[in-house]
């Protein structure tokens, strides 16, 4: 079995990382972007591990697992769920009068 496991791991991690970073910039919702960013950062940590820097790998996960919620908070505290859209009360339900009635016997 002449499979180079390290190369395979590296390729998988890189694909995840590149895909994740593309999703970061293309995601419509800020919170989704933060989630993809977390994935990207963790995969970068995995690549550190392949470079035999264990401490850096674990610190990357530990610190960014903490820092990502901070970004998350930023997203929640400062922005609305739908950016650039006017929010009016009652918008959550499509016609609050009718929708639930269908389920009633």
């Amino acid at each position, binding site marked *: 079995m002449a499979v180079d496991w*390290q190369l395979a*791991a590296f390729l998988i991690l890189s694909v995840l990382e590149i895909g994740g970073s593309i999703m970061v910039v293309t995601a419509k919702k800020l919170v989704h972007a933060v989630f993809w960013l977390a994935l990207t950062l963790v995969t970068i940590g995995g690549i550190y*591990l*392949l470079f*035999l820097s*264990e401490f850096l790998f674990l*610190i990357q996960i*530990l*610190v960014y697992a*903490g*820092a990502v*919620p*901070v970004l998350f*908070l*930023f997203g*929640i*505290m*400062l922005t*609305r*769920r739908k950016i650039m859209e006017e*929010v009016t*009360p*009652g*918008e*959550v*339900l499509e016609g*609050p009068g009718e*929708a*639930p009635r*269908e*389920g*009633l016997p």
Partner: protein
Amino acid sequence: MALLDDYVPVVLFIIVALSFPLVTFFATRLFRPTHPTPLKDLTYECGELPEGEAAIQFHFQYYMFALIFVVFDVAAVFLVLWAFMIYGTASDLGPAASAADRLARFGPVLAPMLLGFIPILFVATQYALKKESVIHI
């Protein structure tokens, strides 16, 4: 690559750990009913119809604490390295070292930390926490 060999079981474990909840959630499909109704799919708000958006905005003040947290997180990482240095110096010296030896070896390790880093950290955090004496969220 002894280090990577150590991590092979960890990678396998992570794969198992990731598939564990996934398998559980898919397996429940075999046992549970699925009858969604519009009423059932409503957001729960104590039996009332949901009122307004759920995207509540919070006090911005706590974001400052979040930033302090990130700074502290990184500072803690540096402290980990420093702790290793102290341990290494102490085990180099051994229990029988003289006081002069100890001062000579520990001085350069402890002094910048005790005179520089920790006082600044302490004063800065005390200032920040005094300023934000009431924590809002």
